């Protein structure tokens, strides 16, 4: 590149010198013209851009962009609200105590077994409303369908297939399922179903305006599953891959009835207050200790770790 610069400079100066030569030839005066003419008025000093901008007026960016002809899309300061799913579980099903603990042959077990949905009037009304909008709804087959949705959703979670997961799981459930899991490896397997899934409750809440119907159906599932979560470095954080566990779950499946493109999607899980404690993670965690006054000392031997209250919650 330096070679070409020199050539161009030479050419430039030859051009200028030739012009000069021609001018002087006309005046009939011969002077020896130097080959390289230094340009006297060339700017030699350097001004940092901050100082250079000091004297100039500030240009309006928007006007500049407009003059350049670049069209920028109008940006709205909005917060999007999602109306394809509700924000929570309405009128949550309270599972009876000791569910799935008693055998079917005992008296109490039989009582539980014969608790049909026909006892609850609101559920029946809700199912009738669902059948108005969706003519192919059958309560018996729906439970199997719900279990299939559950299995597919969890398989999509292990592969982290975002599109498929969004189609199987509502927008309220999605962040709950995927929070913190982006850089973790999850291995989940559905071994078998111990009892046939059953529909235990149905509700049809209306949101905002009358006639905007959603339906939430609670399905009870008793199954064997294996779960193993590995962190970013491939180390086991929770569970084990070989040891399956018996899991009793109450799933809430939701659908936007008035929407013709609405689909049955997993909306959440109900965790009863009498549920057994989950397995601890393979890690020691520090929990905040009690607030002490200046004169007190922390008595590690007699200190009891506070346990959270047993309350039903929706996950």
């Amino acid at each position, binding site marked *: 590149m330096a070679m070409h610069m020199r050539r161009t400079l030479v050419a430039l100066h030859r051009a200028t010198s030739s012009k000069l030569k021609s001018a002087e030839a006309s005046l009939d005066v011969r002077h020896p013209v130097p080959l390289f003419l230094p340009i006297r008025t060339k700017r030699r000093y350097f001004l940092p851009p901050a100082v250079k901008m000091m004297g100039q007026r500030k240009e309006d960016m928007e006007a*500049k962009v407009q003059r350049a002809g670049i069209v920028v899309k109008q940006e709205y300061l909005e917060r999007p609200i999602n109306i394809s799913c509700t924000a929570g579980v309405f009128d949550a099903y309270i599972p009876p105590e000791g569910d799935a603990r008693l055998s079917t042959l005992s008296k109490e077990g039989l009582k539980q077994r014969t608790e049909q949905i026909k006892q609850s009037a609101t559920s029946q009304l809700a199912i009738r409303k669902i059948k108005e909008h969706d003519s192919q709804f059958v309560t018996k087959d729906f439970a199997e369908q719900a279990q299939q949705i559950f299995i597919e959703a969890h398989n999509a979670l292990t592969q982290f297939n975002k599109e498929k997961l969004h189609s199987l799981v509502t927008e309220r459930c999605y962040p709950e399922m995927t929070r913190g899991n982006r850089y973790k490896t999850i291995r989940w397997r559905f071994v078998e179903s111990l009892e046939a899934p059953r529909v235990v409750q149905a509700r049809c809440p209306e949101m905002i305006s009358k006639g905007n119907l959603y339906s939430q159906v609670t399905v009870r599932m008793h199954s064997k599953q294996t779960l193993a979560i590995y962190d970013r470095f491939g180390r086991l954080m929770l569970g084990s891959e070989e040891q399956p566990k018996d899991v009793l779950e109450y799933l809430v499946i939701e659908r936007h009835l008035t929407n013709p493109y609405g689909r049955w999607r997993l909306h959440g899980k109900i965790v009863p207050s009498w549920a057994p404690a989950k397995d601890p993670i393979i890690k020691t965690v520090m929990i905040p200790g009690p607030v002490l006054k200046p004169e007190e000392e922390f008595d590690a031997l007699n200190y009891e770790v506070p346990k959270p209250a047993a309350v039903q919650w929706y996950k």
Partner: protein
Amino acid sequence: MATALTGRGIAVVRNLSALLQSRLPLLVGGPQQLSCLHTSTPLETKHWERKNLQVYPPQLPDEPRRPAEIHHSRRQIKYSKDKMWYLAKMIQGMSIDQAIAQLEFNDKKGAKIMKEVLLEAQEKAVKNHNVEYKSNLYVAESYSGKGKYLKRIRYHGRGMFGIMDKVYCNYFVKLVEGSPPKKEEKTSFDQAKEYIQSLKNRTIIHSL
């Protein structure tokens, strides 16, 4: 590369470059200023922070446990990169508790900033990267780099001036889980022995 530029050619090139220079700030500055709500996605973050996003496949039970690595940095610190370098190399190889203790009682300005960075990194390790014990970390890599400088004029006598750089630096640290690796201490006798051995190992080529 053997193209010859004539006098006219240079004028064209000069005009083009002037046009490009006037166009680029329009393209870069305009949309950026108008879209001020865009939050940074992992696509925009720099190389050092992106190293935290690497996921390893699950380990088999017979493999040795992989130590956790946490990359952390702070950008555009108002300090010189050469002065920061001394502190960065001082803590390289130390355990995190020792490093924090040393920086706490160091009088330099960069020491206070570096200590904050180390504490941030330790917290991130425990919260986000599944590190069990916060003291079980050591500083594997630590170095400083140049940030983006601001330029100002420094006025001298007789109308002369100099361009003053307002200096900024970036500081990078990598914490690894485990105890710090032990430095092999070679005695002078060992070094002498090795030297003599290397002299003895020489072969004379083309000899009889």
